[in-house]
């Protein structure tokens, strides 16, 4: 399934997402962990709530996400609320078939993108691989882009999710983003090595702005979970509680 119910209940997220108007920062460190693991969850959960999703990817094409979601039993091309923005290439990929063609290409068209975003109230904006923007534009520009997206999403009552790879080159970016985020989810490799039954661990903690969330139906619960990526789903469980291990 593309929605991770165990994760939502562990974090005390009744809707499967954070509060509206919030920003979730997801990082991955180590080659074995991948913060893109949560993209299907955020996409599918938002579509289930009948809100639009804008997926801006700096690392993959639309086809990549379509295949993953199809394996999980979700046909994204049939959802009118799904909007993909190409941040990977400079060309607009207009020659692609309609099913895999992006709605917009970001390169040098930032005002158009912001306008496009402001016309989708309540949307979940997912920035996948924002660290790539640091390489092409610089740290200040990448942070400005993030802040601009955050202001527009806050104004429209949506949510923002940012995926970043964490290493020595992106550490400053993450330090600045965590100050502007409400939730922080970190995908890490297991400290004890690799295992066939466990793909890695997820650490969830509040970020700097969490204290300002006034309408908290339930308290966000910091947690550490292990997870296992299989062909059609991702399973989250408490450390040592894998069904295979037990």
């Amino acid at each position: 399934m593309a929605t991770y119910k165990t994760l939502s209940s562990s974090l005390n997220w009744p809707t499967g997402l954070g509060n509206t108007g919030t920003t979730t920062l997801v990082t991955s460190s180590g080659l074995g962990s991948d913060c893109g693991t949560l993209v299907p969850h955020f996409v599918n959960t938002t579509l289930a709530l009948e809100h639009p999703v804008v997926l801006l990817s700096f690392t993959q094409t639309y086809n990549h996400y379509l295949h993953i979601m199809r394996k999980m039993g979700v046909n994204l091309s049939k959802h009118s609320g799904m909007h993909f923005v190409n941040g990977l290439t400079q060309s607009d990929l207009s020659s692609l078939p309609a099913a895999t063609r992006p709605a917009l290409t970001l390169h040098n068209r930032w005002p158009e993108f912001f306008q496009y975003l402001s016309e989708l109230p309540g949307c979940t904006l997912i920035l996948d691989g924002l660290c790539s923007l640091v390489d092409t534009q610089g740290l200040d520009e990448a942070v400005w882009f993030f802040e601009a997206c955050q202001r527009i999403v806050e104004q429209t009552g949506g949510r923002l999710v940012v995926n970043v790879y964490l290493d020595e080159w992106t550490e400053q970016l993450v330090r600045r983003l965590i100050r502007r985020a409400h939730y922080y989810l970190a995908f890490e490799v297991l400290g004890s090595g690799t295992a066939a039954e466990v793909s890695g661990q997820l650490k969830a903690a509040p970020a700097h702005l969490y204290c300002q969330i006034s309408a908290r139906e339930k308290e966000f619960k910091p947690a550490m979970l292990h997870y296992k990526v299989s062909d059609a789903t991702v399973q989250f469980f408490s450390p040592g509680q894998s069904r295979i291990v037990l």
Partner: protein
Amino acid sequence: MNATGLSIRRLATYQQYSAPLVIVSETAQQTALPLLESMVRESIARNMHVLAVCLDTLPSTDITGSPLVQVVDRRLSPESILSAVGPERLPSAAGNQASISLLQRDIETHISRIKTLPTAEQGVLVVIDSLDRLLRVSQAATLGLLRGIRRAVGNSIKTRLLTRFGRDFDGPDRSASKYGNVEGRNSVSYPANALSELADAMIDVYPLDTLKKWMPGWYSDGKAEPFISLGDNDFWRGLARLEHKRQSGKVGFEVSTFEISTKTGLPKFSPIDVSAAAQQALSEHVPEALASLPEPKPASATATATATVAAAAARSQETRDSPAMSADPTANLSFNLSLTDKQRRDKANVELPYLEAQVISDAGTGTGAGGSEIHYQLDDEDDWDNEDPDDDLEI
């Protein structure tokens, strides 16, 4: 030390000390935003006028909803975002040094207006939510802005400029980054040093778990520390280190824990004694004391746990240091090492074996052998030499 004597508490409640510029510093691992907002609530509770300058985020709704609070919103505006032509020309709330000067003049105008109000005597608090954006534009202009506003608020107990910034602004927080030093980046934070020089009080905020690293006997196990631990960014409690420069020139340091009340949103401070005497006592008593404490949970209040340990250790340290105790090492034992009078007499009357023979032989008289003498029968191979074998020693 009791909680009422804490300098940070007196600072937060506007008692006794005037501190026109108070800077709270944070890192990615522990935000200072809850403490900053709780200090703002403390000001509101005292009917002070609050001028909230917002460069990154708006304050919590309970603060912005107060009639005493005036918000100066200088965040990125949606209009400027929608008019951005691309990464080459980015509008920015701080912009350049000229815009920092404009911001300073704007704030000073607001302060002058507040001071003309009939209720101005209740005091004025100017709070800038974060200096990070300004420091990225120009550190010199930011320092100039702080000096100017500090002058404008004046030097009384009930006027203050309160702000925060990230200690890890331009590199790791005074220690090597988990990911190593990248070329071109040093670990000395110039803004932190410059701001520390300028501020009348500097409050550094840490996660509560950091306290164990300040205690003697702690050592790293060599494993890399995670970027964020589960107990980090606790929005209810943390560790605060205060550096306070009085007008007399005296500089005071203090370490305390703070906890934000869930009902009032106001801060509560508890003392932590990290002096040499307490550290010595803590190093001996911490394992026993910690063994009796429950495991800390993120949602439960354990801010006073280490303070309790410190207090117990301090009491036992006082007991051990009293003169009567140190003179007699057998005084506080659970078993008896002393002798009764009869035991002493019996011990004195014990006759040691062969003692009589030793005494007689020393006197040169008595029965038996008549003194010490060694009889040795030479073998055929022995070559008796009358010379002294130690004759060549120059002793």
